[in-house]
């Protein structure tokens, strides 16, 4: 499937689509950020209608979850505002976009720590295989709070919780202006040997790692492959792979790389791989 146009995370070109005034009055910070990101992607690619929205979030709307938890565990017995609860459901961002853009097609939200976005891409791939003329939106969003970060530290000292949003418009057929296509998405236990096979099969010439693998693996690969750690400046979170993808897309667009590349996430024995090739 094809990633429409080029996208960098701070692009915000004024385009035909904009949030109607007052539309964000009930939005939490993460919802606003997601809307801004998606609208930027839509405008940058000249997309005015979508056939589906696929999203990933590892922790959802933390601010609202904490707000509601604080309230219900606190001494107050007064009536509760429904907004924090409503916004705490993980599909609230994707639902909000469907509402604003009147998208009646499939709307699925995945939540699986660092691997949610892989499921998003897989679902998009399945959709576009079946309907090549369709256009779908894919995004990942996660936010951090001080409390969540403190709890993450308590369980995994040294791990810093981050936040970010990245959005993509995907199509089943190539369009002028498309720079890259995604040819493979997997998430499972993959042995080193299998990984090497995939790298050979897909003619991968560069690999981006989010989580740095073993030295042995690096040595095996670096002999003929560019291996790099993608800097997730803001720490670990469920949107980091999506941000890395945006980074890779930019590199293709600027011709910094021109051969197939793999984004590799390894957590324990599990790997998530995304193969990105030029159009």
């Amino acid at each position, binding site marked *: 499937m094809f990633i429409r146009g080029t996208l960098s995370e701070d692009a915000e070109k004024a385009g035909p689509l904009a949030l109607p*005034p*007052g539309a964000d*009055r*009930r939005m939490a910070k993460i919802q606003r950020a997601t809307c801004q990101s998606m609208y930027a992607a839509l405008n940058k690619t000249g997309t005015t209608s979508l056939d589906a929205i696929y999203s990933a979030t590892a922790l959802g709307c933390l601010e609202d979850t904490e707000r509601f938890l604080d309230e219900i565990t606190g001494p107050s017995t*007064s*009536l*509760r*505002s*429904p907004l924090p609860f*409503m916004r705490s459901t993980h599909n609230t961002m994707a639902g909000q976009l469907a509402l604003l853009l009147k998208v009646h097609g499939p709307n699925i939200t995945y939540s699986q720590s660092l691997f949610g976005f892989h499921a998003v891409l897989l679902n998009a791939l399945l959709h576009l295989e079946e309907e090549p003329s369709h256009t779908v939106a894919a995004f990942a969003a996660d936010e951090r709070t001080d409390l969540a970060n403190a709890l993450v530290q308590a369980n995994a000292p040294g791990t810093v919780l981050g936040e970010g949003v990245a959005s993509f418009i995907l199509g089943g057929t190539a369009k002028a202006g498309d720079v890259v296509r995604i040819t493979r998405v997997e998430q499972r236990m993959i042995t080193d040997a299998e990984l090497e096979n995939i790298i050979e099969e897909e003619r991968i010439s560069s690999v981006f790692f989010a989580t740095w693998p073993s030295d042995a693996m690096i040595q095996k690969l670096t002999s003929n492959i560019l291996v790099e750690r993608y800097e997730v400046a803001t720490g670990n979170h469920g949107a980091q792979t999506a941000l890395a993808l945006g980074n890779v897309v930019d590199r293709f667009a600027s011709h910094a790389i021109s051969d197939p590349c793999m984004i590799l996430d390894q957590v324990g024995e599990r790997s998530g791989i995304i193969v990105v090739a030029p159009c």
Partner: protein
Amino acid sequence: MSTDNITTLRQDLKAQIISHLNLEGRTVESIADDMPLFDEGLGLDSIDVLELIVLMDKHYGVRIADPKQGREVFQSVATMADHIQANR
């Protein structure tokens, strides 16, 4: 209750509605006492009714027994103020 108190109550309510429902760009002056709060007018919806019920409880200690009553009570700032005065 004196006329001054009624006016203050209505003005307070307008300010609370704006802040509680995050109606950025709205001023107290732009909300007339009799302005319909739903559909045309302020354009509020069913979630806003729930929020206003919470507002009434929190700020005035007045509870609405049945949310279906909500539409009548929350027709305008004037009806809200009347309900509060009657039940405070």
